[in-house]
C-alpha cells in the first residue's frame, strides 16, 4: 500500500535507512539485480542503464573489533564498519559491489570485501583521477567509464546502448532535481519539512531504486506544496563535512536545551550526493557523465586546485551560507579521516571572516550524546552571545 501523508512517506524513507538490506532484497525478489557501491564517485547511471540497481553501502553502527584484523586501526570508523559488514556476510546477497578510487580508507574496505568476503568475482574498482581539477581528468574518466561499461555489459550479459544511458541519466537527473526542490523548501519562511527529516530522505534515496524513489519524492513534493511548517526557531545551523549516516547526530541539533534549526547539510551523504546534473541529449554519453560528475561539489579527498592549494569545495560552501543563511556551522567528520579535517583547517578562517561560529564533531560508531550535546549547546550560546549577568 503506497504511503499517503507526507509524514508517512518520510517514515517509509526512514525505514529504508534503518533496514537497507530488507529494501535491497525486496528489489531482488522482484527480479532486479542489485549492485552495492561504496563511494558516490561511482557513475551509477552506467549500472542503471544495464538494469542493475545501485544501492549505497551504509554503516550498521555496530561497535566491533573484527575489522581490525583486516584494515588498520587508524582507518575511519565508516570504513571499518563497511569492512565488518562484508566480513560478517551482511551483504552477501548483492550481485556486485563497485567503488571508485577515492580515499584510501574506503578503498581498503572495498579490498577486504574482494579478498576476504567472497566478492572476488563480483566486484569492480573504477580508477578515478586523484585530483579532479586537472586537464587530463576528464579524458581519464571517460576511458575509465568505458572500461567499466564493458565490464557491466559482460556481467549483465547485454549491451548498454546510448538510449539506455540517456534514459538512466534522465531518471538520475530527475532524482537530483527532486531532492534539490525539497531542500529548497528550507529557504522558506515556514518550511513544511525539517532538516533532519530531509537528511533522512536523502540518505534513503542513495539506497533506493531511483524510479521508485522519484515517484515517492514527487508525492512528497506534492503533499508539501503550499503547506506551512513552524518558523525556524533559534539559531540556524548548517552541517558540513564527510559521510554521516547516523541520523541521531543531525536529530540532536534540534533537540538541545536551546532552540536551533538545521537549515542545510552539505555532506557526502546529503547535498554532495545530488547537487549536480549530468548534461542531457549529448552524443557522447560517457563524456556527458564525466562532465556531470566533474561538476559535483568536490570531495575533500580529491579537491586541490594544483599549484594553489585552493579548495573548490569552499565556493559551494560559501554559496550555501549565502542561500541558507546559517548563524552557526557544525563540521562533521569521521574520526581518523584525513581529508575532511584538513578541509576544516582551511575552512575555519573563512567562517571566522564571515563571523560564523563553528564546532567540530568527530563521528564514530557510537555517538557520545552528552559531549556532542555540550559542544552544540556551547556553539548556540556563543552564537546568541550569551553573557553572564544577562
Amino acid at each position: 500500500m503506497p504511503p499517503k501523508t507526507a509524514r508517512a512517506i518520510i517514515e517509509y524513507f526512514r525505514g529504508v535507512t534503518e533496514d537497507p538490506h530488507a529494501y535491497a532484497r525486496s528489489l531482488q525478489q522482484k527480479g532486479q539485480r542489485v549492485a552495492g557501491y561504496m563511494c558516490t564517485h561511482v557513475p551509477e547511471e552506467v549500472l542503471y542503464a544495464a538494469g542493475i540497481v545501485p544501492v549505497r553501502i551504509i554503516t550498521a553502527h555496530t561497535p566491533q573489533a573484527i575489522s581490525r584484523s583486516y584494515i588498520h586501526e587508524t582507518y575511519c570508523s565508516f570504513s571499518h564498519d563497511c569492512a565488518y559488514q562484508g566480513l560478517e556476510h551482511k551483504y552477501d546477497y548483492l550481485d556486485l559491489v563497485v567503488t571508485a578510487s577515492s580515499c584510501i580508507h574506503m578503498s581498503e574496505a572495498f579490498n577486504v570485501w574482494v579478498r576476504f568476503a567472497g566478492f572476488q568475482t563480483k566486484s569492480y574498482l573504477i580508477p578515478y583521477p586523484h585530483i579532479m581539477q586537472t586537464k587530463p581528468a576528464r579524458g581519464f574518466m571517460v576511458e575509465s567509464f568505458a572500461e567499466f561499461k564493458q565490464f557491466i555489459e559482460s556481467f549483465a550479459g547485454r549491451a548498454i546502448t546510448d538510449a539506455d544511458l540517456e534514459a538512466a541519466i534522465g531518471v538520475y537527473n530527475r532524482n537530483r532535481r527532486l531532492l534539490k526542490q525539497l531542500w529548497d523548501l528550507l529557504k522558506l519562511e515556514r518550511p513544511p519539512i525539517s532538516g533532519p527529516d530531509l537528511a533522512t530522505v536523502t540518505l534513503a534515496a542513495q539506497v533506493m531504486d531511483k524510479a521508485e524513489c522519484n515517484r515517492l519524492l514527487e508525492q512528497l513534493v506534492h503533499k508539501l506544496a503550499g503547506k506551512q511548517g513552524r518558523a525556524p526557531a533559534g539559531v540556524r545551523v548548517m552541517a558540513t563535512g564527510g559521510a554521516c549516516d547516523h541520523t541521531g547526530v543531525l536529530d540532536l541539533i534540534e533537540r538541545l536545551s536551546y532552540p536551533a534549526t538545521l537549515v542545510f547539510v552539505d555532506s557526502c551523504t546529503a547535498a554532495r550526493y545530488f547537487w549536480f546534473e549530468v548534461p542531457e541529449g549529448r552524443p557522447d554519453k560517457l563524456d556527458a557523465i564525466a562532465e556531470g560528475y566533474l561538476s559535483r561539489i568536490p570531495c575533500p579527498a580529491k579537491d586541490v586546485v594544483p599549484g594553489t592549494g585552493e579548495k573548490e569545495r569552499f565556493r559551494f560552501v560559501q554559496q550555501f551560507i549565502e542561500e541558507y543563511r546559517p548563524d552557526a556551522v557544525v563540521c562533521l567528520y569521521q574520526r581518523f579521516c584525513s581529508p575532511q579535517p584538513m578541509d576544516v583547517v582551511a575552512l575555519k578562517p573563512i567562517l571566522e571572516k564571515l563571523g560564523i561560529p563553528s564546532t567540530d564533531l568527530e563521528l564514530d560508531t557510537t555517538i557520545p550524546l552528552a559531549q556532542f550535546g555540550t559542544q552544540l549547546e556551547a556553539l548556540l550560546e556563543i552564537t546568541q552571545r550569551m553573557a553572564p549577568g544577562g
Partner: protein
Amino acid sequence: MDRSQIVAGIDSGHVDTKAVVMSGGKVLGYASAPTRLDPATAAGTALNGALADAGMSQSELAGIVSTGIFRDVLESPALHVTATVSEHMADARGALFSNQKARTVVDLGGNVHKIIRFDGAGNLVDVAQNDKCADGLGIFLSTAAHSLGLSEPELSELALGSTGSHAIAIQCSLSAQTDATDLVCQGIAAADVARAALGYVVERVASLCRSMPLAEEVVVAGGLAQSAALVGQLRTALGVHLSLPERPQYVGAIGAAVRGQP
C-alpha cells in the same frame, strides 16, 4: 630432575607481579604484589608473600624462575633469579598444569593480551598478541570500575545483572572510557555501563581470538579471567568452552616454576 625440589616462579607483569612456590607438582603458596614500575621490589614482596603462604623460607628454594615482561630486571641483592622463561612458554606450561587437555591459552593481562597455542608437551605452535591500539584492557577495567566507584569484582558482579544494550566504541581504551563516561553523564544505570565496559574488553579479546584457529581445550588465564562476567561474555562471543583455572592470574608463575625446574 628432583621433583621434590622447591622452586619459586615469579611472573612479573606490567601491572601485577605474581609468585608461587611449588614442589612435587603441587603449588604450596601464592602471593601477588602490584608491580608499581619497580619490578625488583615487587618481585621481592610477591616472593616473600608466597613463601609465607607456603610456610617456608627463601633458603629452602632450589631455584627462582622468572617470567613476564619484566623477567630480566628482577635481580637484586635480595633475590637471585636462577632461570628465565618466556611468557609464552610459561603460559603454555601453566595452562597444561591446570588442564592436561589444554592446547590454547588466552592470557588476559593488565596491559597486554595474547593467545598461545601449544602441543601436549608444551611446545609452542603459534602466538598472537594484541596490537598497540588494543593495549591496556586490564588498566581500562580498573579505571572504568574506579569511575563508577566500584572495585573490579563489584563491577563484574554488577555487569552480570545488566540486560542493557548500550554500546561503547570498540577502538581503544581511551574511546571506551570516554564513551563510558558519556553514558554515565546521560544517566545510564551503572550496571549497564559496567556491562558495556566488559563488552569492550570481550570484543577486543574475541577479535584477537578470531585471528587464529583455537585448538581445544582453551584455557583462560591472567588477572582479568577472575571476572565471572567477563569469562561468561567471552564464552558467548567465542562459542567455545573455556576452561578456567582456580587462580587464573597465577598460570604464568606456575608455568615458570614447572618449566624452569633445573
